[in-house]
């Protein structure tokens, strides 16, 4: 089955982010295809590489990056939601005149059209939120 995943909540604040990761990982292990994981609302905060959780806790951001590397996952962060919350890639930082960027490896920033496309192309779009 081809899945699209929507993550609407931030890391550590809300279990939705963990559940989305566990679901995605399990689906891949069972041989399913993940068309795209789209991060929206506070979900964009799953993509900041400046996250430094305590050592005895899971690293949610790194976990996504590793999964993306392993399975060539498409992790897409909504640009409008990201800009509101201070999440920028190199290009956007330059364009907005900011002195740093903070997007983690394996994520890319793009528009909401990518979410709609995931809805169209996937057999199931699974939403993880509040």
């Amino acid at each position, binding site marked *: 089955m081809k899945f699209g995943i*929507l993550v*609407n909540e931030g890391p550590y604040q809300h279990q939705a982010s963990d559940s989305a990761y566990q679901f995605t990982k399990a689906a891949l292990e069972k041989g399913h295809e993940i068309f795209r994981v789209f991060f*929206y*609302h506070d979900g964009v905060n799953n993509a900041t590489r400046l996250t430094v959780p305590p050592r005895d806790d899971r690293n949610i951001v790194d976990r996504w990056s590793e999964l993306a590397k392993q399975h060539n996952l498409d992790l897409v962060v909504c640009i*409008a*939601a990201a800009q*509101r919350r201070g999440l920028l890639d190199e290009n956007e930082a330059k364009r907005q005149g900011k002195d740093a960027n903070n997007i983690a490896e394996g994520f890319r920033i*793009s*528009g*909401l*059209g*990518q*979410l*709609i*496309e995931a*809805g*169209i*192309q996937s057999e199931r*779009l699974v*939403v993880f*939120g*509040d």
Partner: protein
Amino acid sequence: MEDEMMDEEVIKKFLYVNRKAPYGTVYALESLEVVLIGAAFDQDVSLAFIDDGVYQLKKDQNTSVDAGAGMKNFSKTYRALEAYDVEKLYVDKKSMDERGLSVDDLLVDVEILDEAKMAEMMGQQDVVLSF
């Protein structure tokens, strides 16, 4: 976004479920942003308003600093949805009743559905985005 590999023949039934009050959190505003962008994809779109989500359609919203919230009032955008061919707006009857609201209190024309009809309508969708 306008990806060449996208099959233009595919038209799916998209439902946006709005469950949150308009200004307490950003969900309502950002949901509306998805609806507006999504309209460009020529899909079969419906919106449902449930729980505090029914307040999103309330007339006479005042969000000025003096009134308390100090946020942008985006409620007029719901009236513009028709221009985007987004015309199927469904409102949950129980949520309206619990809040003492009637269709006269709302900004736009809607169809009121009871829980069974709402569930049936949801069952007919291909993609359900819940905010």
